[in-house]
């Protein structure tokens, strides 16, 4: 009876791993565009430092900061950006033979952040968002 919680915990970890793998698979194989909303998905990378989460998003054709909208919560970012020129995919059937002029991406952050203190800048069509971690690390004094 006393061991039941152990098996329950293992089962939950197993479910979490399965969910994460499915999420990775879904992210990897889904197309990088949304035909219905005429939005493209940008490439992005996440860097983690002791104090911050740094998210960099590649936004070709986005040249003005006024064209970018970033919404941050404790656990995710929502990025929308308007391109200065339309991206033409008129010869590609899979892209719906049309043009796209927006980016949209929701990014799940690896740890909770202080969204109010987030800062962003746009340089060379790369959007960099710095989000301070909610649980900061402190140096432990060695006695």
């Amino acid at each position, binding site marked *: 009876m006393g061991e039941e919680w152990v098996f329950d915990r293992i089962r939950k970890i197993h479910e979490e791993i399965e969910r994460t793998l499915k999420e990775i698979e879904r992210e*990897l194989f889904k197309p990088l565009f949304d035909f219905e909303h005429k939005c493209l998905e940008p490439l992005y990378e996440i860097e983690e430092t002791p104090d911050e989460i740094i998210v960099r998003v590649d936004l070709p054709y986005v040249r003005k900061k006024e064209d970018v909208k970033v919404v941050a919560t404790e656990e995710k970012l929502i990025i929308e950006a308007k391109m200065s020129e339309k991206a033409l995919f008129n010869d590609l059937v899979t892209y719906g033979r049309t043009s796209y002029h927006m980016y949209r991406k929701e990014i799940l952050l690896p740890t909770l952040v202080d969204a109010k203190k987030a800062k962003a800048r746009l340089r060379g069509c790369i959007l960099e968002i710095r989000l301070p971690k909610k649980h900061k690390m402190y140096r432990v004094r060695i006695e």
Partner: protein
Amino acid sequence: MSIEIVKRNSLPKNSTIIIGLPDIGLVGAISSSFLIKSFNMKEAAFLDSPKFPPILVFHDTKPTAPIRLHADDDKVVLISEIPILPNQFTPLAKKIVSLVEEIEAKRIIMIGGIPAPNRIEIKKPKVYGAAILEEDRKKLENAGIELFKNGFIAGVYATILKECMKVKYPAIILLAESYANYPDPGAAAAALEALSKLLGITINVNPLLQQEEEIRLKLRELMQRTVSSLKASSKEYEYAVPLMYA
């Protein structure tokens, strides 16, 4: 299972083989594609294997294979429109070395990227060169290309270099500072400028720089797939310090 080279046209003898495969920042793939276009190089052969993904590409109504060789009178370019999977590194490297012997090629020059954490600050990426033979290292220095002194090279290029090292075949790699996870036409332009100095040919990279945003946007899918395949090809070693510093 080995790789087969299916010839469609003749391959020139005594040529230089230039290899640009999907890797860091897609520097190699962008460079090889630009070279083929710039020099109007015709498709000479394609590579096939039962272990390759079941993919056929159409360019301007014509079918072709994603991994192929284009050639003119003195250059052969190996291009791939799909990431090379780690289980194909050695068969591909062995096939390249056997092709080199068959067409008595002068040397192999590979083009790739090296991740630069401060790439966003860099206006003109630096290009480093590495070579199997001492005489090629001198060639690199004479062309004003800084030698790659210490560090790891991992992935498909490392496997090709290793096969060339076994038979002491002249092979050079040009590595341009690049974004790791985004297509980097700026880095490809820098690598091609280094190649032009090395080969003594003129390559006008302006069209590549003018199309930078379009290339970055349209190569997102290939970049995403390449990043995921690089994770399985020991690329993390490139961030490590070799043992000599221990």
